[in-house]
């Protein structure tokens, strides 16, 4: 530890450059926390990993059975296979649902480290999101198997997949940073969040397609709902075999960056008093 660190601080100031540098210096902590999260998720076993694949599969089956009896899922214009469409949206949605579900308690359950050692605590929620994104990537195996089984292969638009994943990670990361830090101050945010995520799910075209909705107001909402853009990219890649709307790509990249930075800023601001509030 030969390098010198000079820090000047008081309560009123946040130094984003210093904070970013600290996050980078703690890269190994980030990977350690991410591995811990995955270990918990998979309960340290291969069977645990199978469970995390089974989860979207079972949901997909329930939705497929229910919704195919409500509306005609076999002939949605532009969609080759309803099952592929459903999974391509459901798996990325689970990143949001799982991360936001865990977000409120993340800091509370780690309060004893946060209070006793100084470190960039934003890495705790970010590692949680990273674990969910890795789980998302592994869950794509299910989708790939089904795509191969049905013979409905994606086209060149598959090259957008990494970008779409990045947007998803940043967007969810920002939201989780906001919820995790706000929940330290307002412990009942958890309940609001659960209801909101549930409503958001049904107000995002995942189990149904945009083209099936004829209400003008809902179509307008789809245009401004960022999850429509992000999920829409995955649906375009896997189920529609087209390039995602250019607007959605721009919108997703821009908005997810903004949301992520906003989440970080709010977290940095609020973490100044974590030690006293936790």
């Amino acid at each position: 530890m030969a390098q010198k660190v000079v820090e000047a601080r008081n309560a009123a100031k946040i130094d984003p450059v210093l904070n970013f540098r600290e996050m980078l210096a703690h890269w190994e902590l980030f990977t350690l926390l991410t591995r811990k999260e995955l270990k918990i998720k998979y309960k340290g076993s291969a069977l645990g990993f199978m469970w995390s694949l089974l989860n979207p599969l079972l949901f997909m089956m329930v939705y497929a059975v229910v919704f195919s009896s409500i509306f005609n899922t076999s002939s949605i214009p532009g969609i080759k296979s309803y099952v592929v469409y459903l999974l391509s949206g459901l798996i990325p949605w689970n990143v949001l649902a799982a991360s936001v579900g865990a977000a409120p308690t993340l800091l509370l359950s780690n309060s004893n480290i946060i209070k006793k050692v100084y470190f960039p605590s934003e890495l705790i929620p970010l590692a949680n999101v990273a674990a969910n994104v890795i789980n998302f990537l592994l869950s794509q195996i299910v989708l790939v198997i089904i795509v191969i089984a049905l013979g409905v292969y994606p086209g060149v638009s598959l090259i957008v997949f990494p970008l779409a994943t990045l947007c998803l990670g940043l967007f969810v990361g920002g939201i989780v940073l906001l919820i995790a830090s706000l929940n330290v101050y307002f412990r009942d945010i958890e309940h609001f969040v659960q209801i909101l995520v549930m409503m958001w799910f049904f107000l995002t075209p995942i189990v149904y397609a945009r083209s099936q909705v004829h209400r003008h107001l809902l179509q307008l909402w789809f245009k401004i709902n960022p999850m429509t853009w992000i999920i829409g990219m995955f649906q375009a890649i896997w189920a529609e075999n087209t390039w995602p709307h250019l607007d959605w790509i721009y919108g997703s990249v821009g908005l997810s960056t903004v949301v992520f930075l906003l989440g970080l800023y709010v977290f940095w601001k609020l973490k100044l008093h974590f030690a006293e509030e936790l």
Partner: protein
Amino acid sequence: MESAAIELINVSKKYRIFRQRHQTLKEFILKRKRGEWDDLWALKNVSLQIQKGEFFGIVGPNGAGKSTLLKLIARTAIPDEGYVITRGSVQGLLELGAGFQGEYTGEENIYLYGALVGLKKSYIKEKFNDIVEFSGLGDFIYNPVKTYSSGMYVRLAFSVVAHISPDILLIDEVLTAGDEAFQQKCMLRINELRERGTTIVLVSHDLSRVSELCTRAAWLQQGQFKVVGDPVEVVKAYRDAVESMQPAVT
């Protein structure tokens, strides 16, 4: 002239002592405030410079702000007014456990602690055997730390912190949980670190230890420094004041 390792410039720190606390959004919206509280100023307009390589002792009664001072230097608390400047890496043995996770084994906690303070895994790996040997925990290192006694906790915590060679080491009155033999060992280690140029800040109620070991000391009383200077004189002044206040207590 080299700049100081630790600088406190007009530092004040207040805590909110809540009489009634609103920790939910519902209450906040209904009552438009986060509760009712009194401000408690743990430190009031404190300034101090500690030079590199100093062994600085802090004495004072309970509630004088000693621990708060260490927390500010360690960054687990931030000042409400003023600045705290540190030059070099800071490690602290502030509270029992140093942020250990009860479910993790001693081994896992060593790596977790290393990662928390931003050290490379390879570096901790290199030091791992030394840490375990110094702690004297033997095979207990592979047990979850929740099964440890408080003495074992301190052994592990001190061993980790003392072997990752910080530039600035903060020690609160935690060492007393270890037995006499281990305390002796700790003092030897602290001296070793000092010889290598580590800046050390020690908070202690063991006044003779402070006057023996420290190169400089301060007496903290009600959030302000009463006397700063030669440890023997500081300890004497503090002792005199304590005795004059409570003549009957031996």
